[in-house]
């Protein structure tokens, strides 16, 4: 195995009732990197993130393989070497236990340290995410925390066992810019302190530009393109990525209608033959309508498109 690969995803397939929502996805996560996963609603981002944690919803059948440093039992590694930063901090914490106890329990779930030491680590972890008077706050219940503090507490909990990978699914969606930046700052600090990689699912392309190293763009359960975030966002190779960027208001003429992708997102199970994006793509050719494009290397990036040179 190559040492620059921490997590490897190979031909991942996730289906419900025989209908594939993730359709053969392969990518790597490198040690310490921040990888963004972007793509249209329903593209399979959350399912992919959950597959990394070995926590797919009931009824899901899977194919392919996810390996964390060679290990395939991801569920057994959850909380140890890979951890989830939940989107909804309130529902991620138990309302009936003090926050500090919940962090201490996370410590004791992976290592047999004495209660007292686990509690001390919990307080230190809360301190590290900037919770004032952490020793006292550790004894408080989630409802006694402000929304922002709760969010920091769940980040502290995810990072408390120094995982190799943190996975966050839309941790900042619908937060205003100030709160968004606070959450991302705390997340970055904790990630650096743990030396962990971060897989960040987001639809906020400003976040991708400013806070991530590489971007994986998904469409209809497949890889559309993958490359350095800055390059993907400034010189997209795939028509879908170009359309996504064009729809940003900061790239549009005020007062005019925003450019949109024509048509509607594909429905799993009733995909067109060939490239799933073809019905919405201005470059679609007969080849596109018959052959599904496979990822190919272009300048150290990956793109799945028959006509990337024209995009």
């Amino acid at each position: 195995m190559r040492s620059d690969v921490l997590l490897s995803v190979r031909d991942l397939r996730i289906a419900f009732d025989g209908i594939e929502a993730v359709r053969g996805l392969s990518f790597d996560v490198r040690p310490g990197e921040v990888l963004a996963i972007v793509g249209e609603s329903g593209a399979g981002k959350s399912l992919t993130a959950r597959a990394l944690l070995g926590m797919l919803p009931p009824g899901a059948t899977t194919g392919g393989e996810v390996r964390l440093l060679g290990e395939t039992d991801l569920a057994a590694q959850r909380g140890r070497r890979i951890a989830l930063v939940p989107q909804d901090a309130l529902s991620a914490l138990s309302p009936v236990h003090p926050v500090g106890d919940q962090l201490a329990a996370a410590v004791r779930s992976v290592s047999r340290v004495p209660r007292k030491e686990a509690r001390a680590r919990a307080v230190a972890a809360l301190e590290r995410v900037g919770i004032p008077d952490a020793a006292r706050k550790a004894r408080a219940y989630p409802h006694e925390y402000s929304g922002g503090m709760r969010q920091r507490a769940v980040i502290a909990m995810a990072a408390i066992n120094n995982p190799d990978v943190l996975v966050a699914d839309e941790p900042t969606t619908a937060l205003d810019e100030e709160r968004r930046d606070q959450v991302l700052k705390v997340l970055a600090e904790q990630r650096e302190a743990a030396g962990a990689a971060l897989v960040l699912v987001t639809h906020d392309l400003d976040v991708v530009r400013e806070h991530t190293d590489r971007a994986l763009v998904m469409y209809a359960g497949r890889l559309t393109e993958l490359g350095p975030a800055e390059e993907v966002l400034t010189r997209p190779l795939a028509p879908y990525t170009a359309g996504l960027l064009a729809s940003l208001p900061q790239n549009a003429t005020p007062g005019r209608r925003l450019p949109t992708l024509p048509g509607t997102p594909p429905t799993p199970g009733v995909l067109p033959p060939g490239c799933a994006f073809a019905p919405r793509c201005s470059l679609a050719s007969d080849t596109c309508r018959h052959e599904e494009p496979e990822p190919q290397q272009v300048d150290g990036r990956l793109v799945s498109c028959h006509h990337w040179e024209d995009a």
Partner: protein
Amino acid sequence: MNTPLLDVRDLVVRYGAVTAVDQVSFSLHSGETLALNGPSGCGKSSTAHAVLQLRRPDSGEVRFEGRELTTLTERELRPLRPRMQPVFQDPYGSLSPRHRIRDAVAEPLKVQGRWSREGGPDRVAELLDRVGLDPAYGDRLPHELSGGQCQRAGIARALASDPRLLVLDEPVSALDPSVRAGVLNLLADLQDDLGLGYLFICHDRAVVRHFADRVLEMRGGRIIT
């Protein structure tokens, strides 16, 4: 100048000792989009709720189509309510999870006595078509729609009341960029065709700059620009 659609003067909303909205004044004309921009907790949504009289303000005036709302009884407000409709952020939360889209859009027509067995279903189909939803989606439940489709259904339901003012509270904040662009374009088209006034609450500066005619910045309950 003609009467504004909405004229708010010295609006104050308090929650206990906290003043969430502090002497806020603005006016809005038909066909115009006025944005309220600011961080969470600055009083944007409290202003929206007070304008809609979902929460009665502690003081100040809210004049809608020339009528002062704050002094009206709930009963007097009832015939005016359909003309000012909210659209909220969470597209799924704003529709009842157990009602089919068709019934959600039909409900205002029925409540307002504008439903007939012949005309009602046609009107629902027309409204769904108007917001860019195939009327076949009427059969679905909210969770069987994507976020963008669900937000369109919410807009169709608001339009069923023949409103003059839409109070849009973070209507696109939960949507991805390409879907968001489609919903913003739809709102712009509806405004052009129907002359609606929009009070547009949004924390995303780029969206606000693109979409609004005028922007008011709010901080700590006050308008600062």
